[in-house]
């Protein structure tokens, strides 16, 4: 079945199911809020106070960062160095999580009308979150980096070595296998996108941190366990980078 036919079927299915979902949501949401409010009220108050404090600190840092950013932009202009901060982005809200455990995806509130296209990387919470795999008029589906079908070209340290980071499934983290021993990778090492020619992601996006390095039995290589830099369990808002792969 061609991609175009399936896309049309998805649109029809969404139209058919939407009124039922709206009805169920209208009934379920107030009930859920009632229970959540009753159980979590004191936590919410404490969180609110903490956030107010952190907002104040962040505003102070933002003022300091502004002047530093100006200096950095002047420097990169003179050096002609690609700077990730110069990429345009579109902020989007996460509207739903993956409906099944067999895929790690999220649906976001922006689509083609807002400039979001298939293949654009998505970042949030300080790191890479995933890549857009389908884009409708006003909504898109993002495959998370932890999806079993996700593979990301990555590098670390001085960027001389490149590896492939694979997803291990929803909430199962990331992994890299067959890492040469001489690559000297230790727990705490941060991996970022390599951005090689033809890569799916621009360079320099933080992906994950090594949590465990295991010597592969019988082989002269490491197997690495990595934890995503971005907090994928608490995705509310994300940024879609308006960047497309060169291929």
């Amino acid at each position, binding site marked *: *079945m061609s991609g175009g036919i*399936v896309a049309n*079927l*998805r649109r029809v*299915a*969404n139209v*058919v*199911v939407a009124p*039922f*979902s709206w*009805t*169920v*949501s209208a009934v*379920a949401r107030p009930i859920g809020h009632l229970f959540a409010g009753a159980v979590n009220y004191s936590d919410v108050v404490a969180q609110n106070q903490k956030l107010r404090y952190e907002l104040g600190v962040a505003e102070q840092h933002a003022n300091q960062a502004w002047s530093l950013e100006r200096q950095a932009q002047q420097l990169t202009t003179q050096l002609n160095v690609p700077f990730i901060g110069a990429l345009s982005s579109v902020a989007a809200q996460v509207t*739903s*999580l*993956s*409906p*099944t*455990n*067999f*895929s790690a*995806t999220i649906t976001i509130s922006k689509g083609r009308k807002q400039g979001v296209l298939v293949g654009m990387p998505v970042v949030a919470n300080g790191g890479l979150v995933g890549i857009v*795999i*389908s884009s409708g008029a006003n909504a898109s*589906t993002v*495959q998370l980096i932890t999806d*079993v*079908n996700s593979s990301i070209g990555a590098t670390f340290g001085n960027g001389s070595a490149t590896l492939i980071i694979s997803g*291990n*499934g*929803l*909430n*199962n983290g990331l992994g890299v296998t067959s890492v040469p021993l001489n690559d000297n990778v230790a727990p705490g090492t941060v991996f970022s996108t390599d951005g090689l020619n033809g890569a799916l992601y621009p360079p320099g996006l933080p992906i994950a941190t090594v949590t465990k390095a295991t010597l592969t039995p019988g082989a002269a290589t490491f197997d690495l366990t990595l934890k995503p830099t971005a907090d994928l369990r608490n995705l509310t808002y994300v940024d879609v980078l308006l960047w497309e792969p060169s291929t």
Partner: protein
Amino acid sequence: MGAFYVRRQLIPAAIATLFVLAIQLVVFSGFRFADVVIMFVWLWPVAMGIAGYTMLSLIVGLVAGVFFDLHSVTPFGLTAAIGMLLGYATSRLGREGVGDLDSAAWWVAPVIAAGAGFVAPLGYTIGGFFALDFQLWRGSVLAMMVVNASAFFIMARPVVRVARAIGRLGEGAIR
């Protein structure tokens, strides 16, 4: 071609199936127990099968599965295939009266549903190989099996009652 006729059961069954799908997408896909999504779309054809309606269990399994697959990026049709298999298998028992809520022991229907919930994620993973998706096993399949079995055990009786009520709506119209 034989005469085409509409069973009175199909319309309420179809509407109920769409509500089941909406409940799955709005409630169960957002609420996760031990990071596992409870697959209510599989419990529905199982319940219809336990109630003894073979054809209805196949139809609701197909409709719920197809619409669910159109909302996810997993192999298209696999959820429907598993739903139909489960519905048919449980209907073989349902037709013998094994899961009759009124005459059988109270635990029979929940145990049958729990068995279906336990087998379903494994069947889905194996079915993925035939759909040329060889990565489905890398999720927490055992956790999915246990959580779905437990959830189906708890929800079986009320869902079977609903399925039986819908099945009885059109029994008078069957030719």
